[in-house]
Each structure stands twice: as structure tokens, then as C-alpha cells.
């Protein structure tokens, strides 16, 4: 199994989630994060002093999937999250050794 962790623009969440359904993905976990990257925040002025907003709001999506569909999931996420503008984010793929569904005790593939 793989854990796919995607950092995306916040307003793209609904599209990403919608795009994953057809692949049979029934669950995912989302958190609010701040991203620092090539995309620079606007220079803002507060009470006459300029400052650079370096951390921008992003959404982190974590979804555990069977290894065989991992590549496809990554592609789908990228397609859905893309705006072609800087700051669209990244997708990282990691190994999961084990997964358990707490309610039933099912493990691995069945737990997802």
C-alpha cells in the first residue's frame, strides 16, 4: 500500500475529491497547512509597513491506496489540482507497511 500525500491549493479540494471517487477511493484525510515555496505571497502593507507573506494557505490531502493504483491516483490528483500557475503544489508517495480499520479490525487492502 501507498500513502499519497498531496499539497494543493485550498480551492481545488472539491475537484480533487470528486476526481478520486471514480477510482473507487472511499476515504481521505485533509488538513490545513501553510506552504513555503517558489510561489511568493503578495507583498502586503499593514499600517504603512511592507511585509512579505511567505507562508501561503494550502491543503494537505492524505490518502492510502493499494500499491497498484498509486500511479493512477497521483495522475488524477495532479490533473484535478492543476491551475498551471505557480504554487499548485506537490504529490509525494510513500510506503505503508500496514493499515487497519479501527471499527472492524480489517487490515491492509480491506482496511482502505
Amino acid at each position: 500500500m501507498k500513502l499519497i500525500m498531496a499539497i494543493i491549493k485550498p480551492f481545488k479540494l472539491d475537484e480533487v475529491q470528486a476526481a478520486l471517487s471514480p477510482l473507487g477511493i472511499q476515504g481521505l484525510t485533509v488538513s490545513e497547512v501553510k506552504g513555503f515555496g517558489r510561489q511568493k505571497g503578495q507583498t502586503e502593507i499593514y499600517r504603512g509597513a511592507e511585509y512579505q507573506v511567505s507562508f501561503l494557505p494550502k491543503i494537505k490531502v492524505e490518502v492510502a491506496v493499494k500499491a497498484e493504483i498509486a500511479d493512477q491516483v497521483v495522475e488524477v490528483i495532479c490533473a484535478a489540482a492543476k491551475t498551471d500557475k505557480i504554487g499548485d503544489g506537490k504529490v509525494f508517495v510513500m510506503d505503508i507497511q500496514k493499515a487497519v480499520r479501527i471499527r472492524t479490525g480489517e487490515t491492509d487492502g480491506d482496511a482502505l
Partner: protein
Amino acid sequence: MTKSKFFAVGGVTAALALGTAAPAHAEVTAETAFILNSLSFLMHGFLVMFMAAGFCLLEAGLVRTKNTSMQLLKNIAIYSVAGIMFWALGYNLMYMDVNGWIGSFMPWSAADPAITEAGFDAAAEQGYAAGSDWFFQMVFVAATASIVSGTVAERIKLWPFMLFTVVLTAIIYPIQGSWTWGGGWLTEMGFSDFAGSSIVHSVGGWAALAGAIVLGARKGKYGPDGRVNPIPGSNLPLATAGTFILWLGWFGFNGGSQLAMGSAADIRDIATIYINTNLAAAGGAVTVMVLTQLIYKKVDLTMVLNGALGGLVSITAAPLTPEPSLAIIIGAVGGVLVVFAVPFFDKLKIDDVVGALPVHLVCGIWGTLAVPLSNSDASFVNQIVGIAAIGAFTFTASLVVWLILKVTVGIRVSDEEEALGLDKTELGLEAYPEFGAGSTGR
């Protein structure tokens, strides 16, 4: 007698008349009456002024976090601009030498013939300080403008909105106001609107409706299939605080519209107005609680807030004449209207962020229509003519202004700006920069 703002210094006249007939020391002297009448304007005026804060918090609580700073800014800007424009133009257009349809074009300047070098002259024509009346009328126009900002929130550009506010407070509101409170043709006809269910509230509603139509709905509010996607307000304590402040301010709004406090009869009337105002609001709130429980199985706090305000707007056209039981009923009907008007406007895809149309437009019309129920001097026909005339003029004039703004400077931010929120794109300032910034998916 129809209580129009133009004629209603009856209390003073009564006191003066009494001055000669009544037993010594029972009556109010002319100067004391002058003071008390003016005090009523000032005290009730500062309560109405506080309604600006009420509108501000109500609206700031019902928009999303990302548009909150903008909503705050617009509300303090509205109140500021309204005051300046009403001085520069509005007051005299509404009250000075009204020819039936319009007053004069010139800035207001205080003049108090009653107070001469030799002291107070009881024979001078007015029973109150001119400035106190100006102050009281000024805070009313600010309320009208505040109504608009709630409806068009979350997608309108700042400066075009401010331009609309200038026109509304300097020209549109005063012109229609002159027809009734300026002693113009509607008053002559017999139209009755004690404290402004139509003249203030539905006028704000009509201007907002025109704006909402020209502007279009927020992105994502209505699905392609006609589905309504609720966009919950971000801070309900703010919205509730705003509602309580508005409720408080309404004692000034309706109570001060008695326009006099210098006789026993006047203060008795003001007391009655306070009571009816309060009971109508209570009736609206309780009705919405019960109705939303019955219809939706859950009470909707934001609708209850709207319901209290709907009750207040409903009683505003005739807060003096109803019995307490009728005041409760008038407010309760306002509550019912709110419950049904909110989804109704959604069905029309008219996106009204804070529910200003149900509250101020719909209940404003209802309240004006309800006047004959308790006031035999009013007739349904006259009321309908007044509602229609005010509505037609205000809606048309507003529509023209919105359209001109749309084709010239543009009134709506880009889709991306809307998605990011006006706070970041228009102001560069978040309302709560330390949390809530990247709220999930919104």
C-alpha cells in the same frame, strides 16, 4: 391622525395650547418642551447611530472569514459617507421647500429661530432644536445604506459600492423621503409610514435587490442543477451581538419617530412604541423558532435573528397604534414571511448574503400594508400606492446606477479574487490572521 414626520410636533402645540388653559403648574413650559423634544431626537438618535454597529457585526458574522474585513470596512465607510452626504445634499433635498416631489439642492445649515439674542422665543415656529432633528434624520439614512451592503457582500468591489452609497444617501433616499416625511405628495394623499417600514427599510431592500440582480450570485452558491449550496456565516456570536444592538437601536428608531417628548401624551406614546416594538421583535423571533423547528426539525439561529429583525421592520410603519396583542401578531407574520422568503429568493437565484431582502424588503412591505389594521386614518389603497411608488422609483433609480457602475468601472471582482476572498485581494488584510486563514476547502 397620521403621524408623519412632517406634521408630528403636535405634542408641542398641545403643550403651548394648554399653557393658557390648564391649571397653573400642571403644564410644560414651551422652553422645557423644546428641550425635551430635542433630547428625544438626540437620545433616540444615538441609539439609531449604534445600529450602524449592529449592521456591521451582523453582516461581518454572516459572511465567510475571507470577506470579513471588507464587510467591516464597508460598514464604517457607509456610516461615514452617509453623514457627510446627508449634510451636503440629502437633508435639504428631503425636507427643504419640498414641492411635492423633491426639495432643494444645497447643503444643510442649522438655524434656530427659536433662540434669539433676547433668549428663548416661545412663539418661534419649531418646537425643537433644528440640529437635533438633523442628527436624527441623518442616522436614518445611514441605516438604509447599511441594508444594501449585506445583500451584495462577498463579491462587490469596494469603490463602486461606495459610489452607489453616495448616490443612495445623497439623492435616491432623500427624494423618495420627501414624498412622505418631507410633506410631499404621498403625505397629501394619505400614505402613512410612521418610522419607515417602507421609507427606510424597503428602500434599502429595493436598492439591494437591484444590486443583487445586476451583480449576480456568489460563485458556487447555486449549482448548475438549480441546487442551493448553503454558505454558512463564519461567526454567529458576532451576528447575534449585531442583532441585539439593532434591537436596542430600534427603540430609538421607532421611539424617536414620535418626534416629540414635550408633553405627557408624547411620552405615553413613546412608551407604547417601545412596548410594541419589543413585542413585535419577540413575536418574530419566537415564530421563526417554532416554524423552523416544525419545518426543518431544527431551529435555525440565523433565521431567528432575521425573524427578530423582521418583526422589528414589520412594526415600524405603525408602532404606536396597535394593541400589544396585535403588535405580537404583526411581528409574528414578519417572522413567517422571513421563513418563506429566504428560500424564495434562493429559488430565484437572487443571492442575498445576510437575508436583508426578506427582512427589510418583504417585512417592510408587510409592515406598511398592516398600518390600516390599527390606524383608521390609513387605507389599504393609499398604502399600496405608496409602497408601489416608493418601490418603483427606488428600484429603477438603483438599477440605473448599478448598471452605469457595471459598464463603466465594473462592480464585481474576478472569480479568482472572489475565491481568495476580498480581504486578501482588495484589502490585503485578514480579519483573523492567526487562525481560520486557510479554512478547509473554502
